């Protein structure tokens, strides 16, 4: 379980996060949603420790990310996998090498054969075995996302983080990526947090949804109750598309 406690973050005079708390349960697909500029990505970066919050803490199964020793933080980090908005693949490495990278760096005790098997298993899981020896520049955006997912799960992480996994993808590929994230979460019993503003993802894979508005947690609950929320800001966000009104 991941628990965030009163996270506050400002950049200069601009207060982006104004004290956000919440819990993300094991084995759940948790979604952080909100309009652009509400601090979703900043919150995710605070959760994974890429940004140090001004106040507050993040607890990974009770272990503090910001108050632990360097070695303890490294241990927590090695239990994380992250899919970045732009996939963040290393340009100079092939798809296979990208997925193998964390194993090479962090798993000295594994033999080359074991590492290769693990990489191929991850690539097989995302359906990219045939592209293993291609370079990131040679594959499509959707494939890059899948390589990003393969790299994120190659270490069998306990926690998976996805920053806008559907950005720049067509609707069909978006749904496939959502399904892949959802299936992997169930398969590995991970705690998954997805930042998105795609309502298809919310309705499709969201088991727990946290809605941010103006740097605050405006609403949280399951995806079924989101359509009946009384929060004006959430209703404006959800029903920005007429399709959602028709659904209701």
């Amino acid at each position, binding site marked *: 379980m991941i628990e965030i406690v009163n996270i506050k973050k400002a950049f200069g005079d601009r207060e982006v996060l104004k004290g956000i708390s919440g819990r993300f349960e094991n084995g759940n697909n948790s979604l952080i949603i909100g309009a652009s500029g509400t601090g979703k990505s900043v919150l995710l970066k605070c959760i994974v420790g890429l940004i140090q919050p001004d106040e507050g803490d993040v607890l990974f199964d009770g272990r503090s990310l910001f108050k632990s020793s360097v070695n303890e933080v490294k241990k927590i*980090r090695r239990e994380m996998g992250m899919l970045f908005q732009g996939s963040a693949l290393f340009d100079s490495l092939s798809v296979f090498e990208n997925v193998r990278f964390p194993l090479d*760096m962090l798993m*000295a005790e594994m033999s080359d054969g074991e590492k290769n098997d693990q990489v191929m298993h991850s690539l097989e899981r995302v359906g990219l075995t045939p592209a293993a020896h291609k370079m990131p520049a040679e594959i499509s955006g959707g494939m890059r996302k899948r390589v990003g997912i393969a790299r994120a799960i190659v270490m069998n992480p306990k926690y998976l983080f996805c920053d806008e996994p559907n950005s720049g993808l067509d609707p069909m590929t978006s749904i496939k990526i959502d399904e892949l994230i959802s299936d992997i979460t169930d398969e590995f019993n991970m705690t998954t947090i997805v930042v998105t503003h795609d309502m298809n993802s919310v309705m499709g894979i969201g088991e727990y949804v946290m809605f941010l508005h103006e740097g605050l947690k405006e609403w949280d609950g399951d995806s079924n109750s989101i359509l009946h929320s009384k929060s004006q800001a959430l209703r404006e966000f959800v029903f920005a598309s007429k399709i959602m009104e028709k659904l209701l």
Partner: protein
Amino acid sequence: MNIIQNWGKYFLFLFSTIRNREPFRVYPSLILDEMVKIGTNSMVIVAIVSTFIGMVTCLQTADNLVSPLVPMSVIGTICRDMTLLELAPTFTCVVLAGKVGSNLAGEIGSMRITEQIDAIDVMGINSSSYLILPKIIAACIMIPALCILAAFLSLMGGYLIGEITGAISPTDFVAGIRNGFRPFNVFFALTKSFVFAFLISTISSYKGYFTLGGALEIGQASTKAVTNSVIGILIADLILAKIMI
């Protein structure tokens, strides 16, 4: 951001490359890769620049040395001292600040804005140590080696142009080079090039590592990397000359 904050950030950045670094086994292959990128790939430009500078130095010295009381071999001596003391280390490093510095800042800056550095950090790997330390070590090995090459080719350029134009005979040129040779000058040139290599690699990496924004900012970071490295080289040049000579 004021200058003191910038200096503080620069020194903390340097410290972060050696604090909590990755296991030793990770570095040798990375350092070798960087040695090829920084050193081998810069040999052509260094060879062209130093050979021509050596030729021009020889011709201009010969042109200005018109007194019949001064032996012709003095041209070789002047070329040698100018090359060892200033042209080979400083001029070569200014050229390398342009080539290597902009390359380092561009590469690291682009990794920063495409979140590749964040990806490394999230894995629990010290990104500054993994990415920057091999570049610093490789630069500190290869740039002094390039300066030795530059000094040799510069003197060879002077030798050849002297013979081709008849400005100075090869015998006089070689006699001048050997006359009153101080081995300390070679040590001085290597010390300078080592310090300049450190400045080029760390300043450029620093500028790239803290790039924010997009493609425009990568270009700006590269430009700043080159200008700041050149300024750093010139200041260090003056300080080393004052301290060591």
